[in-house]
């Protein structure tokens, strides 16, 4: 694990304090947890917008593909296919 020195704004510090108190964690653990959750959200949104493939998302999150699909579903991101993609695929399967 790397050691980093960072400046944290007051509102973010309050969030870390809040999670720390609520979950009975050390502040550093609370910060790590929130950072991970934030990154999972960021990756999920990038996937949802079609900026990442599921494979790239899994690699970024250091999870298997199966775990990534489950995590995304849990976060309400069930896929990233648009109507146009479905209609085009329909032509393939109908031909």
């Amino acid at each position, binding site marked *: 694990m790397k050691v980093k020195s960072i400046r944290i704004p007051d509102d973010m510090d309050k969030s870390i304090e809040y999670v720390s108190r609520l979950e009975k964690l050390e502040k550093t653990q609370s910060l790590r947890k929130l950072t991970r959750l934030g990154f999972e959200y960021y990756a999920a949104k990038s996937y949802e917008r*079609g*900026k*990442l*493939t*599921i*494979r*790239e998302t899994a690699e970024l999150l250091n999870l*298997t*593909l*199966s*775990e990534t*699909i489950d995590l995304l*579903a849990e976060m309400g991101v*069930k*896929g*990233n*296919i*648009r*109507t146009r*993609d*479905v*209609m*085009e*695929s*329909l032509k*393939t*399967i*109908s031909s």
Partner: protein
Amino acid sequence: MKILMDADCLIKLTKAGLKEQICQQYEITIPNVVKKEVVDAGKIKGALDAEIVEQNIQKAIIRVIGKETLSRMKGDPALIEIFKRGQYDALATDDAKLIRLLRSIGIPYILPGLFIHSLYQKKIVDKKTASNCLEKLSLFISEDEYSVIKFLLEEKS
């Protein structure tokens, strides 16, 4: 119809319990890199779908290709290379970014939800079964994909 299948499509169909039905109707092949991602990596973490896919491979329900020649290539490039080398009709995936790439190089693709529609159209499953299958898959596919397929199932009746 000869289909090359990507990992996300394979995992989603497996999680929804639909893969066997689809494998009976289509000739499904996966690249060895996909096998590694789904079975080998999944088994280390105890994923149930990894065990199921491994059994399918052992029973030759799913064919694995590209063992030696493409072992150094990663998922998407290996998938495209194998598609170009083989006589496949389409590539099955549920990934928008990969689809953009496939579209740009003219590779036809099939979404997991459309397999259900196809089974219904071919009268292999009835409407109720198709709707149940779609509901199972709905946990893993986008709202757009779900809505269009639901509409198509309704439209036929």
